[in-house]
């Protein structure tokens, strides 16, 4: 192997968990690295303050895919508060280490997840602001999800 990836990293690259999209996610974010050109998209489903489901899409290298895979595995079922604080060091540790030039992949994955959570919290705050009737609530949700699809371009 050109790079000294661990077996766990390779497993997560070859058979990544949680790949795909979630339609009408509660939180969505796209993150890119300006230098290396990689990109990750995260989708969240939240229920009772916990991450019920999380999925990702990747345009990136083996470690980009592997870090997103292991991160989504770890935070699934976690409270949003705990997931927000999940450190990139832990991602590296879970994979049994990453080659030096690949450590930034774990930082990007964690930042992407945080961004998706922030997106969720933003729409949550927006829906809490106004005292709304049931009908209006549905409307807010609709525009919310519309906004998300348009951002996915």
């Amino acid at each position: 192997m050109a790079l000294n990836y661990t077996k766990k990293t390779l497993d997560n690259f070859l058979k990544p968990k949680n790949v795909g999209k979630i339609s009408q996610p509660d939180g969505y974010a796209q993150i890119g690295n300006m230098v290396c050109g990689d990109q990750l998209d995260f989708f969240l489903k939240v229920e009772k303050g916990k991450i019920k489901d999380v999925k990702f899409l990747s345009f990136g290298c083996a470690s980009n895919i592997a870090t997103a895979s292991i991160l989504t595995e770890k935070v699934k079922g976690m409270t949003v508060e705990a997931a927000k604080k999940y450190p990139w060091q832990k991602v590296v540790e879970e994979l049994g280490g990453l080659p030096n030039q690949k450590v930034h992949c774990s930082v990007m994955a964690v930042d992407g997840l945080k961004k998706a959570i922030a997106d969720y919290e933003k729409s949550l705050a927006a829906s809490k602001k106004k005292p709304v009737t049931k009908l209006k609530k549905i409307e807010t949700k609709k525009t919310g999800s519309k906004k998300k699809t348009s951002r996915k371009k």
Partner: protein
Amino acid sequence: MQVYLDNAATTKLDPRVLKKMEPYFSKEYGNASSIHDLGQSAFRDLIKAKTTIARLIGGEANGVIFTSGATEANNLIIKGVALANRTEKKNKIIVSSIEHPCVMESAKFLARAGFKVEFIPVNAEGLIEPKELEKLIDKETILVSVMAVNNEIGTIQDIEALAKIAHAHGAYFHTDAVQAVPYLKLDVKKMGIDFLSLSAHKFYGPKGAGVAYLNRQVKVQPQIIGGGQEDGLRAGTYNLPGIIGLAAALELAYKERNLYLKKVATLRDYFWKKIKQEIPEVKLNGSLKKRVPANLNIMFGYIEGEAILMDLSYKGVYVSTGSACSASDLRASYVLKSMGLNKNFLNSNIRFSLGRFNTKEGIDYTIKALKATVKRLRSFSPIN
């Protein structure tokens, strides 16, 4: 199954070459600088190797200087020629924008030392148009360096035309011919090449052996000094096994050239045809016509090169990528960048370089593997 498609990185040592090298590890172990018989026997074989190489590249035996490889040869030529020929009126060197890092870094070293350094652009096909050199060259120019064949995209440059322009302006001409054996017939005198670099392990010879061919009429400042070997141009004990291996490999490469070219071209053309048939959204980088028959550099849309490489590696297929993710500095290939490749496609490229030991069976296996790899990675790409 294992399929090695990274022959531009290095090649497998030819067993016939190994056999010729073996005595120089055991029986003929003398130091070619020693004046006793064991040493002189080695020295005679060293001269024979130089004569063979000189004949194969159309040069003089005393111009053949052995180095540890092409990186050292390029350092010696670029730095050595520039430093030895610098005057108040001559203070400039010109290199192409797609040179190997060892030429680039040597040029940048000279820039830090106060030289003017210019880079010749390439067109979208990865080719240097001679008129671009005309624009940059002047009487101040000491040396022009353009690689004969590019390592990433395999494009062949018009060395003769470029050398002519260099000479017309009183500059010397160097070509890094590392990727050119045996694809181009090399004739330094006919082609107007003053300096040329070779590396044995790119043509089924051993690693650690290279040649800096020098026009001995021109001053060159040695970069490794010590015991005065190679007429003082490159110090260090002669690496006889490597030198013998290099000469033997070069001789075989040109002896079997026609058959080799035919085989590689047939496989490469079949491979490219199949890729286009089986995989959508692919594009060849660089000219197909002015390209060595061993090279394919292909862009696979929407997915990243290092991931393709790693996935293929797991399936036993060994390739290379210019993707940022595979580089220690996380920057995408400057070769593809200087061709003006779309920014979104810079990290989606794979280099396949074929060689003597590839088979149709191996190519068929690769196509199957590649198809599955591309399909898998595209299935979760956010771009489409």
